[in-house]
């Protein structure tokens, strides 16, 4: 059956006719229901378009075919976006927008397609006279917001028949509107490694990008409906040259457990052509087949090709090593990975499994090297008491080896006094042996950071400080330790202002050194952020805290300071984000007040009256409001409220009138602003204003004592 028979039309040069026939048939074989049919139909359509060009050339058609002219002139744009939107429509769209926004922000509901379908079928959507306006509104909405699940995406695609719309939008004039659609679908699917197209560029390159995106989206849709072997058949020609596509399909196959197809796509030669990531993928494939030796080879090959080994590859190497029974090597890597990837329970489990085996093997050894190994293992798995039981009798053995395991156990169990003693003995005996004790001193600082007394500082840390500083110049961890020492030094020792300033400068220098030696270490950036914040360098504090944030997203102090730093640097959106988050972390009533008052200012600066009032209402009940109002940004607040709708100053006025100590406020500017506020309120507060003006003018005592 040729392409024309398949499309059910006579051979024609009329592209529009071909498209209409294709669109009609598309309804009968949608990619989700009949992927093979869809593929054949698509092929017939593309063949027909190619043949139509040949027919056109052969028949020397007139310069402007009536149909072509009609197509080009047909106002697809007007179909898409109505030229005139009635007030009624706007209302409907507004209602729809609210419904969409509500659903989008409901985290539990937005991931279910039923909820979106219900919205599409709700009376709101039928109220719109113009179906295209509704569709475009949905498209632009999802473009402007974050990603939605595949299932929801599919519901959109099927409801609005986006696949068919490819044809409607193919005309070059309208590709800009279409780009929204494709951009949305593409970003939503997140299937391919291609770069995102720019939205709405206006040159021919943009059109090319558009066509490329379209192909990717079509590919993505087909990917979701074709089983791996069918996919391979469909793309067997395309992947010959397109390595990225080959890798992508291989990844897709791996995801669905189609390991055989992965090997078909990526044998060693192909993997070499495709590039580094292919080896990691093959490693994963072999690992799943329990061919650990091959898995290890491929992962290691991938590691050699990378300038910085990705964590996933390290994980692959560690798991493969474990599979091969190389427990020591696997354990070493897994310990590092637990630090790098705390959320990877698979890594933790494998580590626990190996540690259990090792503990079982070593059980019964209570002295010597094996006893120490057992103690170290028990410490690593968090069994500190069990570890103590083994290593306490080995105290002198540990001292001779300068091994701080016992001290670290005390520290982990919260006994910093005994930890300090242990470190002291260790360091003293190491000194007697004339050993380098920089490591021990650094370890001590890290262990007992929270509970370091002045005496311990003088006896243990002080004498080693110069050596630590020297070592810090090439070692990030030492630089961090020295920065910690200088941070805490003014609090521990009696120092004058000059010494305090010197300590701060040195702390900043060493923490900068630590972050430059190890730019991604969250702990270093946490300390740097805190030093910068205290030095009022908000921009720098933000930079460091943002890097440190993944270390502990819920860290109260970090979020508090980050919010404040954003506030002081006038990045109000970001400030709101952090300040609101901090308020959810059990803030004290005092902090609650401080955070909320900043939020009020942020919202008022952004002109959001509704939120400003919401937060004003919240602080109204706070016990700190009365006592703190004189010292808080009331003045700023009043100033900012002037540009907001009357509801805000009115609310603020009411709030102020409930404060008993308002007449105790000392600053004259408050009075001026207060009167200005009353003037803005108009007649409603006329009497009150006159009275205040009278008091203010005649006595000059208003609000002052």
């Amino acid at each position, binding site marked *: 059956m040729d392409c024309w028979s398949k499309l059910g039309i006579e051979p024609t040069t009329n592209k529009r006719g071909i498209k209409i026939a294709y669109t009609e048939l598309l309804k009968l074989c949608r990619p989700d229901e009949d992927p093979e049919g869809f593929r054949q139909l698509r092929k017939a359509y593309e063949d027909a378009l190619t043949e139509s060009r040949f027919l056109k050339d052969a028949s020397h058609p007139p310069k402007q075919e009536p149909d072509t002219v009609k197509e080009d002139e047909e106002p697809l744009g007007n179909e898409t976006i109505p030229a005139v939107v009635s007030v009624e429509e706007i209302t409907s769209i507004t209602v729809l927008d609210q419904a969409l926004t509500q659903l989008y922000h409901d985290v539990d509901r937005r991931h279910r397609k039923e909820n979106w379908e219900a919205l599409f079928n709700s009376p709101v959507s039928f109220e719109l006279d113009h179906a295209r306006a509704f569709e475009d509104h949905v498209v632009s909405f999802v473009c402007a917001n974050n990603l939605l699940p595949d299932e929801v995406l599919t519901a959109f695609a099927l409801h609005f028949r986006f696949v068919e719309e490819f044809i409607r939008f193919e005309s070059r004039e309208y590709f800009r509107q279409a780009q929204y659609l494709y951009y949305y679908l593409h970003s939503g699917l*997140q299937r391919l490694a291609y770069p995102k197209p720019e939205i709405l560029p206006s040159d021919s390159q943009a059109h090319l990008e558009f066509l490329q995106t379209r192909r990717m989206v079509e590919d993505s849709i087909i990917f979701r409906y074709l089983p791996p072997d069918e996919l391979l058949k469909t793309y067997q020609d395309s992947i010959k040259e397109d390595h990225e596509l080959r890798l992508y399909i291989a990844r897709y196959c791996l*995801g669905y457990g189609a390991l055989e197809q992965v090997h078909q796509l990526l044998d060693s030669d192909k993997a070499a052509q495709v590039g580094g990531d292919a080896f990691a993928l093959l490693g994963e494939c072999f690992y799943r087949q329990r061919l650990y030796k091959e898995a290890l080879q491929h992962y290691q090959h991938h590691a050699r090709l990378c300038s910085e080994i990705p964590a996933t590859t390290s994980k692959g190497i560690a798991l493969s090593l474990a599979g091969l029974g190389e427990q020591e090597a696997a354990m070493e890597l897994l310990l590092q990975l637990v630090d790098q990837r705390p*959320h990877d329970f698979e890594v933790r489990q494998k580590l626990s499994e190996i*540690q*259990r085996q090792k503990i079982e093997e070593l059980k019964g050894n209570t002295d010597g090297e094996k006893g120490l190994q057992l103690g170290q293992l028990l410490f690593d798995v968090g069994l500190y008491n069990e570890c103590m039981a083994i290593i306490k009798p080995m105290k002198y053995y540990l001292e001779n080896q300068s091994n701080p395991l016992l001290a670290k156990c005390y520290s982990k169990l919260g006994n910093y006094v005994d930890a300090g003693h242990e470190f002291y003995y260790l360091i003293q005996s190491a000194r007697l042996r004339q050993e380098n004790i920089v490591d021990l001193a650094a370890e001590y600082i890290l262990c007992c950071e929270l509970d370091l007394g002045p005496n311990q500082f003088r006896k243990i840390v002080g004498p080693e400080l110069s050596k630590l500083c020297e070592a810090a110049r090439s070692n990030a961890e030492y630089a961090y330790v020295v920065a910690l020492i200088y941070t805490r030094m003014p609090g521990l020792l009696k120092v004058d202002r000059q010494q305090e300033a010197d300590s701060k400068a040195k702390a900043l220098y060493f923490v900068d050194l630590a972050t430059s030696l190890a730019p991604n270490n969250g702990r270093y950036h946490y300390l740097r952020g805190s030093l910068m914040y205290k030095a009022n360098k908000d921009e720098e504090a933000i930079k460091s805290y943002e890097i440190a944030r993944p270390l502990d*997203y819920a860290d109260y102090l970090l979020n508090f300071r980050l919010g404040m730093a954003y506030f002081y640097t006038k990045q109000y959106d970001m400030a709101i984000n952090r300040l609101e988050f901090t308020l959810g972390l059990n803030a004290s009533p005092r902090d609650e007040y401080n955070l909320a008052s900043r939020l009020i200012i942020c919202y008022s600066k952004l002109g959001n009256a509704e939120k400003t009032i919401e937060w004003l209402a919240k602080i109204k009940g706070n016990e700190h409001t009365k006592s703190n109002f004189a010292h808080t940004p009331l003045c700023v607040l009043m100033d900012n409220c002037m540009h907001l709708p009357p509801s805000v100053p009115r609310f603020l006025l009411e709030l102020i009138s409930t404060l008993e100590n308002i007449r105790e406020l000392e600053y004259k500017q408050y009075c001026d602003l207060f009167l200005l506020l009353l003037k803005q309120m108009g007649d409603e507060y006329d009497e009150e204003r006159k009275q205040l003006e009278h008091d203010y003018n005649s006595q000059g005592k208003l609000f002052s004592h």
Partner: protein
Amino acid sequence: MENRQRELTGQKLWLVSLGSMLAVQNGYYVKELLLDEPDDEARINEGRVSLKRDWGIHDRETLKDSLAFLDNGGHSRGYMDMARQWGHIHEEQCEKALASIDDETYKSKVRLVNTHHMALHNCGIYAWDAGRAAHLIRDAWYLGIITEEEEIWELLLQWGKKVQPQFTGWDHFGLSYAVGRAYWAVQNLSKPFCNNMYTTLRKITLDTNHPWNQLEWNLLLQDP
């Protein structure tokens, strides 16, 4: 009642062990059908209150409703939905895509799903739902919501038969449970949070006397 409390073996111990994670976490018995001392009225009353508060269970009907919820997808369904969207994506690409999202909870969930896709691509967090179901059944026995012991074993066996083919071993089951618990409680994936989520599983992994380290996962489950 005296005969009710006894140490189990074989199939019965295997079935009870499906709820081990919650039992260990709450300090309940792990080798018996009863969760705790049968005469501890205070504990029984407390159990009734919490079962009603947390699950809305106060009789057989409400128990069956909750079990049906777990059976029909529970939290596993949402996880698998997310896995379909995010599971196959390479971690680096996933991070790039997440950069444009503000919702920290959603991001944390995606990271969990993406990281564990290789290990849990077939079963998801089904162990989290199944483990809780097994615990609820034991709880129902302890609190007297179900009084026929045969019925308890029948219910546990139904779950056991569904669970067994989905996992390769107790470790696999445990991993799915731990990820499920983290997925349910996730607000962020900080190290302390993850350590806390993994504590129970590590306890079990390291305890050589725990049934998981003594019983074969592929034990032949037979009808009584």
